[in-house]
């Protein structure tokens, strides 16, 4: 058991899914050819003036409310000054002392325990451009398409006590913001980025230890690994009599270690001051209430409702709630066919498996809630077996045909017709006289063998329940 306590705080940057950039009317679009979504404002050309995108502010308020934060009745924008080629103006427009939201919290579940993680603040700012370094030609290339993309930065209090908690917080935060629809939270596209502050202190000590700042983690897994690495490094350094220096470290995923940034990059003096080009904003209480009214049901509430309303297991409810699209699909399906547990089994099982195999989201799936319940109903009626049902699902997703069409085309319907089944059963009984004797002498479980044999003869198409029933009846008659 370690004698130290870990203290972690996270800063998460999320790109907001507005149609345009935060201070100009250029499209906020990922993946365009370089420097095609740029204008005098986002290039910082002399004489251009930024104007705030109303939607970006509304998204900021939305996120703030979902994080149980207070929305500042007065906000303003400030210039954060630094020189870097990805920042054409020589400063980033951000918020310093009057951020859109402050003093909130997010409830997370970690190790079976519920915990409140304090949210210190959430502020709006503009993203910078993208730099590609060309070592061969000794130059760097800048694409300013991303410049001016609206960001919200969400900063926690130093409330996280382990890398695992940090990981759980990130997942909960991501899910919450995806539910709000304010960001797609796609780390691969860079629309979610996370920096971490970490320190350790002897258990029982209230003063914080010296922290280091970690950057350059490309996945939640990497955040966790970087934090685990850094906690170990702090512990080893301190227990061997060394000292931790406050500095910024870059996570190197390949080497699985943190690396010191050169000191030149760390010399920061941002000299924040109010941006004279952007007037301040008073946020009316009525606006806040209107946004609050439009908040969707959040994942934790949906989870609890799924348990009580549909009687789902925690496991199933978790699976469904983990993706708003899947949860919506599920509820649409339940409206068509009121057997929530059966639908949940299909969704959490075969449907999710198909999604993973195909690496697509539920919205890209070639099946409607109506289409899925039509299949489930056929399985429940006993027209097709559970196993065959899964094949039907795969075929539905491949070709876009209905369940009934596929069952017919592939001849998957189970044979439940008595006379057809008796033909097979009589054959099996004739071929296995010893088993029949066993059944007759009081070992009914031996019938299972005969059911298996009959199933084989039917090419897997016989209805097993029906087979069992008919075999028992036939032997009793003999």
């Amino acid at each position: 058991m370690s004698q130290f306590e870990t203290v972690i705080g996270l800063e998460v940057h999320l790109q907001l899914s507005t149609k345009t950039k935060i201070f100009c009317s250029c499209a906020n679009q990922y993946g365009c050819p370089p420097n095609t979504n740029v204008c005098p404002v986002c290039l910082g050309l002399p004489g251009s003036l930024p104007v705030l995108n109303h939607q970006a502010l509304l998204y900021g308020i939305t996120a703030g409310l979902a994080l149980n934060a207070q929305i500042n009745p007065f906000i303003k924008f400030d210039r954060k000054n630094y020189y870097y080629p990805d920042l054409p103006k020589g400063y980033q427009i951000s918020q310093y002392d009057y951020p859109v939201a402050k003093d909130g919290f997010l409830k997370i579940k970690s190790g079976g325990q519920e915990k409140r993680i304090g949210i210190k603040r959430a502020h709006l700012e503009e993203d910078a451009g993208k730099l590609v370094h060309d070592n061969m030609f000794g130059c760097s290339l800048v694409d300013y398409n991303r410049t001016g993309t609206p960001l919200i930065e969400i900063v926690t209090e130093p409330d996280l006590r382990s890398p695992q908690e940090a990981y759980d917080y990130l997942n909960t935060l991501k899910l919450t913001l995806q539910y709000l629809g304010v960001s797609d939270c796609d780390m691969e596209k860079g629309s979610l980025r996370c920096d971490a502050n970490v320190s350790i202190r002897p258990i029982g000590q209230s003063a914080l230890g010296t922290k280091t700042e970690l950057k350059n983690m490309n996945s939640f897994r990497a955040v966790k690994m970087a934090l685990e690495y850094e906690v170990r490094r702090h512990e080893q350094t301190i227990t061997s009599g060394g000292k931790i220096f406050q500095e910024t470290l870059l996570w190197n995923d390949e080497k699985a270690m943190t690396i010191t940034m050169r000191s030149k990059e760390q010399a920061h003096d941002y000299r924040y001051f109010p941006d004279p080009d952007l007037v301040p904003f008073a946020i009316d209480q009525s606006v806040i209430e209107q946004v609050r009214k439009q908040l969707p049901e959040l994942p934790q509430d949906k989870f609890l409702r799924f348990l009580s309303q549909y009687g789902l297991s925690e496991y199933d409810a978790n699976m469904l709630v983990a993706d708003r699209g899947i949860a919506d699909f599920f509820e649409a399906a339940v409206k068509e066919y009121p057997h929530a547990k059966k639908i949940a089994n299909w969704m959490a099982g075969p449907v999710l498996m198909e999604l993973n195999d195909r690496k697509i989201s539920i919205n890209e799936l070639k099946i409607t809630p109506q289409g899925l319940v039509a299949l489930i109903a056929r399985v429940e009626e006993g027209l097709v077996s559970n196993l065959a049902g899964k094949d039907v699902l795969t075929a539905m997703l491949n070709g876009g045909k209905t369940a009934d069409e596929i069952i017919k085309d592939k001849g998957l319907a189970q044979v439940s017709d008595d006379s057809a089944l008796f033909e097979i059963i009589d054959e099996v009984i004739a071929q296995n006289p010893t088993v029949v004797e066993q059944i007759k002498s009081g070992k009914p479980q031996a019938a299972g063998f005969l059911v298996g044999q009959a199933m084989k003869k039917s090419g897997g198409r016989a209805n097993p329940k029906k087979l069992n029933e008919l075999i028992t009846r036939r032997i009793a008659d003999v």
Partner: protein
Amino acid sequence: MSISKEDVKYVAALARMDVPEDKLEGFTRNLGDIVHYVEQLQKLDVEHVKPTSHAVPVGNVFRQDVVKASLTHNQALSVAVEAKDGCFKVPLVIE
């Protein structure tokens, strides 16, 4: 408040300006004079003045979230000192 040579060097470094050693003395004096001049404001009693971030009484100026045409690619790159592969070309920032 007096301005030292170190202050001038620091501000110059933040502004990415090269200040030759023989100009340092003069710059320090000039900057000191400017700061001293502005220092007169300190004499004012501002106890009952609300902190002000903007001088113009205008607020809540918004833009609707509607896409408008950006510059063309060629227009955008026309302001670049050098361009390469559709990008602005700058000196290598990481060695």
